[in-house]
C-alpha cells in the first residue's frame, strides 16, 4: 500500500529504430501520447525503481537520460546493453534512479542499435512523490 502522496508512474516506450545512430525512443506515461521526453514537474521527485529493456537487435545500448535545461543538454542516469536476441532484461534497483523535478527538467530514453533497424521496447516502473 503506497502512501497517499506517492503516485505510481507506468512509463513505456515502443518503437522501431531507423538505423545504427543513437535515437530517442518516444515514451508514454499512462494515457499520454508518446513523446520524445517527459517533464518532471517542479515540486515532485521521480524514483525509477525498475528498468525493463527488450531489444532483438544484437548489441543494443539503452540509456536513461535527464536534462535540467529543457533539453539543451542531457546526461546519462543509467546505461545498459542487450547482447543477442535473448529475453528481456529486468533491472530492479535497490536505490531508485532519482530525478528531482523542476521547470526545465526532462527525462528521456535513448537507444542505439548498431546492427541496424529493429524493434525496441522499454518500461520504467517509477513513483512520483512530493
Amino acid at each position: 500500500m503506497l502512501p497517499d502522496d506517492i503516485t505510481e508512474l507506468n512509463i513505456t516506450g515502443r518503437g522501431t529504430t531507423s538505423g545504427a545512430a543513437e535515437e530517442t525512443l518516444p515514451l508514454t506515461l499512462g494515457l499520454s501520447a508518446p513523446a520524445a521526453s517527459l517533464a518532471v514537474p517542479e515540486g515532485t521527485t521521480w524514483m525509477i525503481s525498475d528498468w525493463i529493456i527488450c531489444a532483438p537487435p544484437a548489441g543494443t545500448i539503452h540509456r536513461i537520460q535527464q536534462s535540467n535545461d529543457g533539453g539543451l543538454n542531457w546526461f546519462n542516469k543509467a546505461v545498459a546493453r542487450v547482447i543477442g536476441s535473448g529475453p528481456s532484461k529486468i533491472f530492479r534497483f535497490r536505490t531508485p534512479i532519482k530525478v528531482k523535478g523542476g521547470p526545465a527538467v526532462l527525462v528521456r530514453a535513448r537507444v542505439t542499435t548498431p546492427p541496424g533497424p529493429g524493434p525496441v521496447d522499454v518500461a520504467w516502473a517509477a513513483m512520483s512523490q512530493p
Partner: protein
Amino acid sequence: MSFADDVFPISIVGEGSAGPGETTVNLSQEGSTPAASIPVHEGQKLVITDFLISSSLSAAEFIIQQTQDGGASWFDVVVQRTITADSGLEALESPRVVKGGPNTAIRVRCTPDGGFSEVSATILGRLEPTQVPAQS
C-alpha cells in the same frame, strides 16, 4: 521509497573502450565532465547499493576501487563480472560504504577477457552526511 532531506540518491555513469588489460572507465555524475575518478568529500559517505555493468564484445571483470590517499594506492570495494558480452546488475544485499575524506575517491576498473570491449558501468547509491559524534 522516500529519503530524508539530507540523503541524496545519486547515479554515477561510465562508458568507454576497455582493454587490453585493466583499464579505468571514465565516470560522470549528473552531467559532470567525465573523469578517471569521483571524489567522496569529507563529511559525506557514499553508500553503494547497485552496480550495473555491460560489456559488448566479450566477458569482462569490473571493479569499484577506493583511494584514501589521493590516488597513490587503491583497494577493491566491489568486484563483479559478466560471463559473456552482456549486461548484469548486482543489487548489493550489504551496501558498500565509502566514507568521504580529503583524499578519498572512487574509480571503476575494467578488464575485458577478449582483449577489447565497449563497456559501461552505472553505480547507484546515496550520499549521506557522516554522523557527527554528539557533544557532551
